[in-house]
């Protein structure tokens, strides 16, 4: 049978959701796959929501909001844009194609545009095939990746960076110094990389205790780097030595209350 992708759309109430209504009112046809969730503003889209949705096997996720400048809440849509930007970087590390997440601006008067972007995205997903996390047997590695990404997205560091991006770039940080977008992106990329890998380590050793060497092999990462992350994770109380085999300590994940 043909592949009917599961697509979830997070739409803002004022522009995109109204646009979707208009498409219906004007009888403009588009594929049936999308399942729309109405939010007051695209800015409401928490990265965790998106990752959770992927983790549960969605083949694609669309976030839609008002065009820049039209946001009913001034710039919730720009917040959404930043979050999606971060998410794509994060997802690209998990083995899931970041193209499965798309952000679009659709206004209340653009029923036709709504249908177009939904159609286009649906066909794109069909071309890409089912998500590795869809169906009965999700790909364990990717799932681990997504869970790690989700954990990273829940973590203070990434959230505060995304939340403060505008502030830091436009108003300047506590030292009144404004960061260039490039500089900020570097910081952001670094944070994404480390936070992701740390959580990836955590989820890996949650399955079975592993040594630094084993981990570095598994994650194809320099043992020193692995060790540094282990140290941070131990400090965060997420990892502890499970046992020592010969001279090699095996690390295990602690169940943390997150």
């Amino acid at each position, binding site marked *: 049978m043909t592949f*009917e992708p*599961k697509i*979830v759309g997070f739409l803002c*109430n004022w522009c995109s*959701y*109204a646009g*979707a*209504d208009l*498409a*219906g*009112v004007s*009888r*403009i*046809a*588009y594929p*049936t796959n999308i*399942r*729309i*969730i*109405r*939010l*007051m*503003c695209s*800015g*409401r*889209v*928490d*990265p*965790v*929501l998106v990752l*959770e*949705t992927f983790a*549960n*096997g*969605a083949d694609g996720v669309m976030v839609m909001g008002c065009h820049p*400048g*039209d*946001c*009913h*809440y*001034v*710039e*919730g849509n720009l*917040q*959404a844009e930043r*979050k999606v930007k971060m998410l794509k970087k994060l997802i690209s590390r998990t083995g899931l194609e970041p193209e499965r997440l798309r952000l679009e601006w659709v*206004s*209340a*008067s653009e029923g036709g545009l709504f*249908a177009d972007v939904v159609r286009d995205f649906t066909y794109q997903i069909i071309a890409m095939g089912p998500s590795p996390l*869809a169906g009965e047997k999700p790909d364990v590695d990717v799932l681990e990746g997504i869970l790690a990404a989700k954990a990273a997205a*829940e973590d203070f*560091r990434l*959230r*505060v960076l*995304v*939340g*403060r991006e*505008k*502030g830091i770039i436009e108003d300047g940080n506590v030292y009144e110094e404004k960061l260039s977008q490039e500089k900020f992106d570097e910081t952001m990329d670094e944070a994404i990389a480390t936070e992701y890998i740390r959580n990836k380590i955590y989820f890996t050793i949650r399955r079975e205790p592993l040594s630094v060497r084993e981990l570095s092999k598994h994650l194809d990462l320099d043992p020193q780097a692995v060790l540094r992350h282990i140290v941070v994770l131990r400090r965060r109380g997420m990892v502890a030595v499970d046992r020592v085999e010969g001279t090699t300590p095996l690390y295990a994940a602690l169940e943390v209350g997150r």
Partner: protein
Amino acid sequence: MKRAEDNAPRIGVFVCHCGINIGGVVDVPQVVEYAKTLPNVVYAEDNLYTCSSEGISKIKEGIGRYNLDRIIVASCTPRTHEPLFRAACEEAGLNKYLFEMANIRDQCSWPHLHEPEKATEKAKDLVRMAVAKAGLLKPLVEPEIDVTPSTLVIGGGISGMTAALCLANQGFRVCIVEKESELGGRLKQLHKLYPTLVNASKGLDQISGAVKANRNIDVLTSTLIKQVKGFIGNFEVDVQRGNGETAKFEVGTIIVATGTDVLEPVGMYGYGEHSNVLTQLQLETLLRDGKLEMPQRVVMVQCVGSREEKGRTYCSRVCCMTALKNAMLIKESHPRTDVHLLFRDLQTYGGHYEDYRRMAQDMGVKFIKYSLEKPPQVFPKEDGRLDVSVYHALLGEEINLETDLLVLSTPLIQCEDAKKLSHMLKIPIGPDGFFLEAHVKLRPIDFATDGIYVCGTAHSPKDTAESVSQALGVASRAAIPLAMKHMRTEAITAMVDENLCSGCGTCVKICPYSAIAKDEKGVARVTEVLCKGCGTCGASCPEKAITMRHFTDDQVIAQALAAVRRELA
């Protein structure tokens, strides 16, 4: 003492056929049967029209008979119908926030009318998603706020003044803010008004006189709106006077009556090149000031820069009648003058305008229909006159008209500061560049944002009578909250968990409404009447300490999971 399972929500699902709007595509009975299988659903039924008073009473009955504590209606869009169904729940004693809608018409049966099976599957999923969310809904209350019994009218034209006067006479304070140095707007430029041919100045003087005399009205001319903060009932307005000084005041409602500009047809039909090519507005002013030395032959061209294929596609509504009127004024004073009117479709709608056309024909005004494909062409002659060559669409012949004066009817267009205002007030602008009302049919002079209204040509091109009608209309709309003195606001607001908040202040920076501030304990606190419930703060809070009411993480995630994981049902 209650047993555990008694605390489980009791969900009722009402699926609407909407005649055949839904029923003709989606297999509604099947959806109902499916709904019954979903967790916590204790009752489900279908209605021909759930919104009919019969449907409404069905909901109320259901709540009573099956003591339902969550109601789901699967029908059209919550944007139009949620209030109705919420009210029904309330009347049956159920908190209206325990209601959820599944949009299986606008976003299912209509766009997918050619795929009934898939549409039915989608409808089921949408219902399942609604059920998933409904189970987690919490009752909410709408805080009550006081309304400042005054109105800001932006624009001192005929619309603004009419609205202001009507409100003032109802006993409300009104502040008119006009960017020009005096009241009057477009009417100041006009000569006589069709169809009564009354002098524009006459009516204008009467009204502006009454406005100035009214003790309830403050007029701020040469004044610009700097900033508008707040919300219905409590808007905070910053203005800047001509002399640079700024002022601040509070109003309960805002009326947008900013009017329009008129298109300058530069580069069209030799406008700007030849001195005897004028716009209809320029002609009007000349006629008023008696400065037009009478030409032998006049040609008027309609739809100059309007009703185009691409770009300015709309019809400017007032041009045909204005041209007819000016043509007649010319004929009246100079019967021998030839006047040709080159039109596409004569917009002589409504009561008197057809007879008006006949009057013009009686006076010998000549009508030639041209087509968009073959617009008239203008060729200058040595003696300074012009040859207008037009393809008579209804004779199929090229006709040459020698003329001393060419008059171009150009459309009313959005005025340049409309965009600024649109951002400031969060009011949308439509594809035609004019302000976009809440609903084209039934809310023609409201904005989606509560407490802000639109009238006159800011809404779309229209003549004086039509502007006045709308102006009086907004005077009613804007008076409602003022008369009520206080009102209830959204319950869908953000809530900070003090125990989780680290006081990082991210949310404070993000909130566009300054609805979040740190309190003495250094943790974030939400001012609910200011909060508009976008939820961006919650989505950004590093500590995930903010809960967005009615759109909580677990509610939204539940919906998302229900969307992708059928087996969860």
